């Protein structure tokens, strides 16, 4: 069992957990993820690591409540335990001294981009951060994120915080201002990653995107998380989750992500009324 040591409510649908998992905390690196299972009937849920503390032996996760399992997770409290917690999974981010880098966290993607940003700064890069969300309530960790950046931008679709507009609008301005950008990492919803990659491609700026695919085992044995990258099929869980944004087939990935949409609705409905009513 893996104990929840701390819970923070970042917004009504956005929660942070610090989980006791010393073995994973000892080994994990920026860019990797874990898979958790709440209880005996639970599904395996992949979540990218938002932070870790090797001394305390903890892993920090931030998740949005988007379905049955994440809502159930969101109702758990400090002191409760998760049944299964597996990791660190996936390849770590490629941390090098690239020069001037832009780290983009969109929505809940702010969480996984945080440790990568920190590692890129420690590697001696000039780091420009962008935190983006639909609206103010969905932003979090702005001070923490900003502390890892030499320059920091915030934007919201509705203009309730920071600049009004999309990540691509902010990125465009940065590129125009700075001229030379050596590396971009973008994590967030597929449209944010797709359009960021589309913008940097003609400019030849190396761009990595972290794919949040449907997963089952997370160790390379099933291929549920397959992504088309260039001419090849890759498994996000062992070959990724980060891939070259200029080669990812984002449209296919978006449609694969919707594979179980009906079932997800059914699971939510069953969970909200107890399932014994026969109404679904």
């Amino acid at each position, binding site marked *: 069992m893996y104990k929840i040591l701390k819970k923070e409510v970042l917004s009504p649908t956005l929660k942070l957990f610090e989980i006791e998992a010393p073995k994973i905390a000892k080994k994990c690196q920026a860019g990797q993820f874990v898979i958790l299972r709440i209880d005996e009937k639970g599904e*395996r849920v992949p979540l990218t690591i938002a932070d870790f503390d090797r001394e305390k032996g903890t892993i920090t996760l931030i998740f949005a409540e988007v379905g049955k399992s994440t809502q159930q997770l969101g109702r758990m409290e400090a002191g409760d335990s998760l049944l299964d917690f597996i990791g660190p999974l996936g390849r770590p981010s490629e941390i090098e001294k690239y020069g001037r880098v832009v780290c983009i966290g969109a929505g809940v993607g702010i969480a996984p981009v945080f440790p990568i940003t920190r590692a890129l700064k420690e590697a001696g890069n000039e780091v420009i951060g962008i935190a983006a969300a639909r609206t103010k309530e969905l932003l979090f960790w702005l001070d923490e994120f900003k502390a890892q950046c030499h320059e920091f931008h915030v934007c919201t679709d509705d203009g309730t915080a920071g600049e009004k507009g999309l990540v691509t609008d902010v990125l465009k301005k940065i590129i125009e201002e700075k001229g030379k950008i050596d590396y971009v990492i973008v994590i967030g919803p597929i449209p944010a990653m797709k359009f960021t990659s589309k913008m940097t491609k003609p400019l030849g700026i190396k761009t990595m995107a972290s794919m949040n695919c449907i997963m089952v085992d997370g160790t390379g044995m099933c291929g549920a998380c397959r992504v088309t990258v260039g001419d090849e099929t890759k498994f996000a869980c062992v070959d990724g989750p980060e891939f070259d944004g200029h080669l990812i087939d984002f449209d296919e990935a978006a449609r694969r992500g919707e594979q179980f949409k009906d079932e997800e609705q059914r699971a939510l409905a069953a969970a909200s009324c107890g399932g014994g009513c026969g109404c679904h």
Partner: protein
Amino acid sequence: MSLNKSPNKNEMPCQDPQARARNFDEVALGYTEETAVDEANRCMGCKKEPCRQGCPVQVPIPEFIAKIQERDFAGAIQIIKTKNALPAVCGRVCPQEAQCEKYCVRGKKGDPVGIGRLERFVADLERSQGVKPVDCAPPTGKKVAVVGSGPAGLTVAADCAQAGHKVTMFEALHVPGGVLMYGIPEFRLPKAIVQAEIDNLRKIGVDIQVNSVIGAIDTVDELLENEGYDAVFLGTGAGLPYFLGIPGENMNGVYSANEFLTRTNLMKAYLFPEYDTPIKVGKVVVTLGGGNVAMDCARTALRLGAEKSYIVYRRSMDELPARIEEVHHAQEEGVIFNILTNPTKLMGNDKNWVTSMECLRYELGEPDASGRRSPVPIKGSEFVMDVDTVVVAIGQGPNPLVPRTTKGLETNKKGNIVASEETGATSKPKCFAGGDVVTGAATVIKAMGAGRVAATSICEMLKNS
């Protein structure tokens, strides 16, 4: 006892095909006490024990059958367990026709003795009455790490624990058992039975660490150098699914056999939404491939509600690599075999869901390297099948996680770990390997045989160190 001269094996009662094709309960129901004794009486107790040479773990077959003849069922299971830690599993999933029963003298005129069915009978009886753990040697103070808890790892764990070594088994998934839990369906091998056999290992002191991905959480080198293990056994299996590499394979509705079976068996998606993991099958499900895994998928598809379940295989019925019994069961349940056929591409709708499959007809040519007649496509024979779901069951390779992170571990071109057939030794000192990760996808019992070989070498090495 008096010899039962019937040329026929006692029938195994089974669930009615129509009914069972729609439920996940076990198909074969097992012998009763009377049938078991009657079947045991067909054994002539050959002194040379030809049957035993066909058993990869050398169960003393005539001895345990003699105990059944005497109705000493507890004695029978104790004899089996000196050589086999998973009798209820092996009695169910071993291809006995190619192993022990192939060598049975009674098989020369009529059916061989139903050895697998008898093994299953005594194992099931013991489980229903409470299991007595096997005796272990006094502790040696040596530590053995077993990576992977499938059939090979379970055998090594059992053998090493019985020899008095402290065994820790590391499993990446949340339950131990490997393919016995995620791969072989409930209707062939109920998961409660696998769990009961694994619990027997816990009773003899095997420590099972689930959720532990070796290569990520600890490398093999760290186990040997920092964690104080005296030997490591790698039984990580062949869990990396192969795809055909044809257009459309990444569309929605296309699963690897591993994903399809893992969702169903391990995650119990057939009980969705009581269990949280979903699975989706349409009206027409096509499974590509002809092995046991393909049969499992095609039969699972019916149980998940498919109206039609097809096997599409590029050779003929004679070349199907699946066990004959499994093919028969599949046919009885209504699986349709579309043989001498292979897909060339998958087509879908605007939402990226698969809707049809273009295929070519094949004919058989000369035997190929595998000794089977090679399939040759017939020009101009293209046709289109309407499909809702496709399951790719064309084989698996070794998972690269452990080889990728282990210094000095030799692998071959396919990524399999190179290990001696006689000893299980790898190129890395103190590191042994066996089962599918060495041979490529094979059978449960072959993996157990390889585990036995490696365990013997490990115990020998530890005795001399």
